[in-house]
């Protein structure tokens, strides 16, 4: 079967050399941006691409990345590739690239001087395999945010916390006012992501890298990480009454003041915007949970499968350029709530929270994210562990930490 793919891939490379005349071409783009804020953002891409005389065929797959990725991958491996597809850059598409199913974008990247405009540099590094560039990073998403509802704290009669510790201290007052202190949805990645944020905030950037980059299992089972598990235990107690599944439903609890706060990536900001809330007035954001102001440079990127059709291949090039265009970058990222991947764009329209993020980025306080450091397999094991941990209040910290260390020991 692999032989067949390789032949197809080879045929496609040959076809590329006979690129036909440029004309309006339909290009299907798959992604999992379906919540209100996300859909508004992706429409900006579609608009910009349509303006180049091509046509963006929207292939949105509902149900977050976990549901969408298997569909995308099976379409690519099954011989029915789309024109372009979203992945979180890092290791999700690694094997597809190694199998020769993805298009090498190095030429376009050299032409557009991507290495100069894209910052931080680690973004493009995540797209690079064996010296060749295979994806276009479109935004920087960082998980390290605590979103707080000012209204909820007002109702509970406590000041809006300035960091995680104050938030934990305020939890009893919130509960007394009938408010869920912390909203954590039931999808497994939410629990696992919240833990990673706590690890970077409570444990610090070095601890984070030691666990996920160096995969030091002994350290992961040690006393420093035990502190992180203690914080995770606080989070578990504060989240125990959340009866929602999806992340945006959990964000909605914060927006409506039914929950005090949520640990969620900056994509949550798009939801606040769609709901017409103002940063600083209606809600407060604390990067790095107010403890360790770093942001992770995870994010989304577009990959381009190798296609046989010359017109479509041409359109892929146009799309790749459009995605990184300064104007598109600003329009998209303002709607999405994420940070642009170019340092040379004007972001005066950015709100308070985004400005905080940009400032941290300018300081260079960045860490790579788990998508870049761990394989999907290890990520899934982690998700299983933390979704169990958050749902089962009688699971001891020692047991959880031991299992965590085991996962790190076998991680690749």
């Amino acid at each position, binding site marked *: 079967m692999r032989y067949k793919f390789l032949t197809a891939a080879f045929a496609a490379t040959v076809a590329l050399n006979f690129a036909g005349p440029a004309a309006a071409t339909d290009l299907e783009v798959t992604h999992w941006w379906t919540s209100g804020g996300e859909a508004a953002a992706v429409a900006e891409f579609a608009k910009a691409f349509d303006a180049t005389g091509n046509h963006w065929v929207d292939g949105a797959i509902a149900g977050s990345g976990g549901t969408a990725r298997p569909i995308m991958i099976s379409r690519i491996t099954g011989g029915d590739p789309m024109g372009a597809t979203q992945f979180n850059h890092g290791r999700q598409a*690694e*094997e597809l690239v190694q199998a020769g199913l993805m298009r090498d974008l190095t030429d376009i990247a050299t032409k557009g001087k991507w290495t100069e405009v894209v910052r931080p540099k680690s973004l493009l590094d995540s797209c690079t395999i064996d010296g060749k560039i295979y994806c276009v990073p479109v935004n920087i998403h960082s998980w390290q945010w605590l979103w707080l509802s000012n209204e909820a704290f007002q109702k509970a009669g406590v000041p809006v916390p300035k960091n995680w510790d104050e938030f934990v201290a305020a939890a009893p007052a919130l509960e007394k006012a009938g408010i869920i202190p912390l909203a954590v949805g039931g999808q497994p990645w939410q629990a696992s992501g919240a833990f990673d944020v706590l690890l970077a905030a409570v444990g610090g950037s070095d601890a984070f890298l030691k666990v996920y980059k160096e995969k030091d299992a002994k350290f992961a089972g040690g006393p420093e990480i035990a502190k992180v598990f203690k914080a995770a235990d606080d989070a578990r107690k504060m989240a125990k009454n959340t009866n929602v599944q999806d992340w945006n439903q959990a964000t909605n609890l914060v927006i409506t003041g039914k929950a005090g706060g949520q640990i969620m990536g900056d994509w949550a900001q798009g939801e606040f915007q769609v709901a017409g809330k103002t940063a600083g007035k209606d809600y407060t954001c604390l990067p790095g949970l107010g403890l360790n102001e770093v942001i992770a440079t995870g994010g989304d990127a577009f990959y381009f499968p190798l296609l046989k059709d010359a017109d479509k291949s041409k359109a892929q090039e146009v799309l790749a350029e459009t995605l990184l265009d300064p104007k598109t970058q600003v329009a998209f990222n303002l709607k999405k709530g994420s940070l642009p991947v170019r340092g040379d764009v004007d972001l005066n329209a950015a709100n308070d929270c985004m400005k905080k993020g940009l400032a941290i980025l300018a300081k260079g306080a960045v860490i790579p994210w788990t998508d870049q450091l761990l394989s999907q397999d290890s990520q899934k094991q982690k998700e299983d562990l933390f*979704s*169990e941990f958050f*749902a089962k209040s009688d699971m001891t910290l020692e047991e959880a930490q031991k299992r965590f260390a085991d996962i790190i020991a076998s991680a690749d």
Partner: protein
Amino acid sequence: MSKSERPNQLFRNLNAKVASIPMILTALVVFVGGTAWTVLYSFTNSKLLPRLNFVGIDQYYRLWATPRWLVSIENLLIYGVISLVFSLVVGFILAALLDQKIRFEDTFRTIFLYPFALSFIVTGLVWQWLLNPDFGIQRVVRDLGWTSFSFDPLYNSSIVIYGISIAALWQGTGLIMCLMLAGLRGIDEDIWKAARVDGIPMWKTYLFIVIPMMRPVFITTLVIIAAGIVKVYDLVVAQTSGGPGIASEVPAKYVYDYMFFAQNLGQGFAASTMMLLSVVIVIVPWAYLEFGGKKRG
């Protein structure tokens, strides 16, 4: 056709044999071939794409050390016992009641069979709403005045699998009832008359005469229920997606999640091979008794 010539055996009913070649090929390539391929690759460390890089039984070792797999197996056992016992018992009782020559039998039969027309996904969603504490049964009862009433099986780790079983029973019992009813109608009227003449009470007639006579129907039903148990997946996805935490995970979901979400084909294949093995362990002795017995008799 002379009966003495043996070689002719192969060419007897030649048309029928030619016609069945596509199905034979499908069975061999898709079922047997696919199974063999899966088992073979379960001994490799294939990640996103299948690779023949053998690692022995590492995948199985990891599988049986994974808490989520153990929870899945336990849930499957609980779910299996519940759906087997309850759908047989409830299905039979409903069928026996319908068999009492009651009025509007057609109407009742339709009502009981209707849930079966829904897919597991729809069933799962309906029951997810019904069992949701904020808008479902609990809310209705609380609004009626019993404010301390609590019924939220889907949000309680220790009983969530029973919440899923309720939905499965609601959906599947109607079909079992129909099969049983067909079986009951197949019992000769004279048997009932004879039992009545002998003064045997009705429940005894059912238990000791009718049920043993319905053995073939029971076997068919058993196979249908058992197949449904092993492959349960969509119901769980629709109702809880395995939650809270991993409390309602089932083996089929483990296979899917590890093959596609975790991009670890080897692990998914190992899990599906274990599922196949469990089916084989159940089916083979039964098939031996069932079909082997016929030859002797």
